[in-house]
């Protein structure tokens, strides 16, 4: 392939790379980095635009045969994830407006994400996953607004390292058995009854469970989410989660999961759904609550892998869109507090409707959607996953999962109760929202409405 073709094929990645270089340059040479947010926004928007163009033109190419290929589905996933990163950047204005490092790290992480979405071999996939994850360890620490931050970052780093090790071990087992690093090895290993292949698959799957925070590998999530600052938590809860799931999707492809892997794939996510929802009920911190809720949502997402291979991509991607949008909407609408810890407390939401009706309505909508109550997009997403699971014959697991999701309703309702039905904490200030955060919630709201009103159209794109 010519260099020009490689440039085109990797357009989203290249745009991100250029952005990273510019931002580093600005960080080194400019005295103040006030334009960092604007640059990052433009870069991510351009990258998303490039990915959209690649998708709509149906561009398919293999710049690096066996390692890296571009296909419309991958381009669409890139476009969606990059678009979801826009509100994250917008809502970082309060915390990181003056901080060029934040934007560099986010762009680097997004670069890794794009890489893994196009990977054809275990090597590129691994590279992508690590490039995506490494900056986040720093991002958690970057806030450093409270003493818990270093602990959270360390915990995240160590457990992330464990996942990496398991992933690598799994890959080596698969490589040892097949002699090839192509991702299709994984699908073949799913079919095989060879003990080595099964061990490899199991290790890789557990690595994904760890990165996706599935019970019992979830313990890092509440601490990391709480210790990070709001934009970083939002980034981890939506985009990193999407990255992990999309990487898993890359490996599973359309292969039907059979015994004994399906037991693992059904049971642990089910436990996650139940436990995540139960544990979330007791939380006093908004971010810890979202962490446990994300444990439950990871459960739904991995459930999708039980389903028929053809509908899997659609179900996962649709869920990620609905889940990401509404989560970001909630984060963008969070009212300001005295300091980070106070802002994070659920009590800060008391009587929010009186102080800021718009924010309360937005958070309320996000909560109901995350709870999977119609007519919000979360419902259609959940419906898609559970109907796939049921169609694949796992009726019992589908019913149990639905009952598990019922457990989650209570704590989402509690947030609404605090905002609408509990009187204001005495003398609580009217929250201030900067225009960037409002823009972020506006973006998410419009997209969420579009998904809610035209789910059929959205699904048709996948």
């Amino acid at each position, binding site marked *: 392939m010519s260099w020009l073709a490689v440039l085109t094929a990797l357009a989203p990645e290249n745009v991100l790379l250029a952005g990273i270089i510019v931002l580093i340059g600005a960080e080194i040479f400019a005295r103040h980095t006030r334009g960092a947010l604007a640059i990052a926004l433009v870069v991510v928007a351009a990258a998303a635009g490039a990915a959209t163009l690649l998708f709509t033109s149906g561009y398919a190419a293999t710049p690096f045969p066996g390692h890296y290929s571009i296909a419309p589905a991958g381009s669409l996933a890139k476009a969606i994830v990059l678009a979801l990163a826009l509100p994250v950047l917008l809502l970082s204005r309060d915390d990181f407006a003056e901080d060029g490092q934040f934007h560099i790290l986010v762009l680097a992480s997004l670069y890794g994400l794009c890489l893994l979405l196009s990977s054809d071999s275990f090597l590129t996939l691994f590279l992508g996953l690590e490039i995506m994850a490494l900056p986040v360890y720093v991002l958690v620490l970057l806030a450093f607004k409270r003493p818990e931050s270093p602990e959270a970052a360390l915990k995240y780093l160590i457990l992330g390292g464990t996942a990496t090790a398991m992933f690598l071990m799994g890959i080596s087992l698969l490589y040892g058995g097949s002699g090839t690093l192509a991702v299709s090895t994984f699908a073949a290993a799913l079919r095989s009854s060879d003990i080595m292949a099964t061990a490899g698959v199991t290790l890789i799957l557990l690595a994904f469970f760890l990165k996706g925070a599935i019970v019992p590998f979830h313990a890092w999530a509440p601490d990391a989410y709480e210790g990070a600052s709001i934009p970083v938590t939002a980034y981890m809860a939506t985009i990193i989660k999407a990255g992990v799931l999309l990487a898993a999707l890359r490996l599973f492809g359309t292969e039907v999961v059979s015994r004994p892997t399906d037991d693992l794939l059904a049971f642990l996510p089910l436990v996650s759904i139940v436990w995540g929802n139960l544990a979330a009920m007791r939380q006093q911190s908004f971010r810890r609550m979202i962490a446990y809720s994300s444990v439950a949502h990871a459960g739904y997402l991995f459930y999708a892998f039980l389903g028929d291979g053809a509908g899997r991509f659609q179900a996962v991607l649709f869920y990620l869109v609905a889940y990401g949008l509404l989560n970001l909407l909630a984060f963008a609408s969070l009212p300001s507090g005295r300091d980070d810890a106070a802002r994070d407390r659920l009590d800060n939401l008391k009587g929010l*409707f009186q102080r800021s*009706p718009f924010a309360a309505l937005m958070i309320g909508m996000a909560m*109901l959607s995350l709870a999977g*109550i*119609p*007519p919000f997009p979360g*419902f*259609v997403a959940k*419906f898609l996953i*559970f*109907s796939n699971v*049921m*169609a694949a014959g796992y*009726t019992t697991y*589908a*019913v149990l999962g*639905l*009952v598990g*999701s*019922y457990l989650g*309703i*209570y704590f989402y*309702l509690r947030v*609404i*109760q605090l905002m*609408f*039905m509990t009187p204001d904490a005495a003398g609580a200030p009217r929250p201030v929202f900067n225009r960037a955060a409002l823009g972020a919630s506006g973006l998410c709201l419009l997209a969420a409405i579009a998904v809610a009103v035209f*789910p*059929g159209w959205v*699904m*048709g794109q996948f």
Partner: protein
Amino acid sequence: MSDAALLNVVLFLPLAGIALLVLVPARSEGTIRGVAFWVMVVQLAATALLYVHYDATVSGLQFETRIPWIPAWGVYYQIGLDGYNILLVLLTAFLGPLVVAGAFSAITKDIKLFYAMVFLIQFAMLGTFVAQDLFVFYLFWEAMLIPMFLIIGIWGGERRIYATIKFFLYTAFGSILMLAAVIYLVYSLRTTSGVTSFAFADLYRTQLPLSVQLVLLSAFGLSFAIKVPIVPFHTWLPDAHVEAPTAGSVILAGVLLKMGTYGFMKLGFPLFPDATRYLAPLFMTLAVVSIIYGACLALVQNDIKKIIAYSSISHLGYVMLGLISLDLIGIQGAIIQMVSHGLTAAGLFLMVGMIYERCHTRELSAYGGLAKLLPVYSVFFMILTLASIGLPTTSGFTGEFLVLLGAFKASWPLHVAGDSLPLVLAGSAVLGVVLGALYMLRFAQSFLFGKAKAPHEPVTDLNLREKLILAAIVVAVFALGLFPNEPLSKTELAAKEFQQRVTSVAIPGGAR
């Protein structure tokens, strides 16, 4: 404008109302109330037009709209009027302006959000009735919970948060199992006939083995039974009613409870006919238990809202009895009873709200001799009480009488054939009428007669707004009692269709 478009206008008018409310500044409360009221009036007028133009001689859907919505799943935005829903749609639209007007003086906090929520629930309720596609139905069915949750939780009484969360969690539990059943049902339709569709018309044609039907009917049935509510799934209702603001109680008793019985009539029974016939004795028993248990509990309450709340359980037991009798007269009676209860319970809750606004207590023992203190109030109250008891010439009589007639007519042949349980149950249901008279008259006696007392004296009698609201309800109650033929003719074909669907043996070797 085509006829089908008019139904869409009726359905989406509440959303337009919300849009209008958003434009009005929160401080101009008069404008907000005016907008809410007049939008509801326009909706009622449009619905009345639909009702008049509804052709009773044609079975099936009228004013139908069908647009693909999620093509990949075969989901259509499909709505229409038929004999099942025509009266309930009219009831919903009729209560709309009354609910809004009834809340003019009672709701003073966040009124913009309040009327927006009333519009939202109006939209969801109408949508549930007119939906002809299971997916759309489920969306509306669940969406109903949110505004009700907020109405009770924000404007309710002291224990409102407990009550509203209990309400939400109870009903959501039923819905989640129903969701599983919906998915399974649609999936079975696809495997047996190759059609992926959520349309009711297609789903009626699924043929499932009895064992599967039983499971699915239990899932659907639990969801509907919680909503009705049928004893023993009723415990959320008294709490919700007592804590809800008047408008919430009126919506709850007037329309929301009918969702459950409508669900049984439109979906639960006809979708799973074999299981329905198999479980008919169980449903009949539960219906009669609800009638008698509800009445007994109403007899011993001291909270006036609770009396009406428990009486609702009893009255909706009749609806269930009429439906499960599978006799044409009984089914017709059930439909009339739904509307009649919607009117009388709404009226009574409005009246309780009016006295509560004046005296700030719901304790029955705090009142007495209101006939002397509030003569106009007492006249309206007595009329609604008698209608609730089912005195001839009122709507309550038409409904209960037809239900009991149907129940006896259906159980007599069974008795002759050696199965006396239905006859015993039908006989016991008559007891409910007596108990109904007992608790309502006890209520009216200590409320209206005896030594005159009321907290916060002197109390003022009804004002013009309140008189007009109650007059509208009383007129409707008598209209339905004196001229039941006209509405009955509109539902007759649907009742026949329902009867035929449930009684026809779908699979050889099915139950009974």
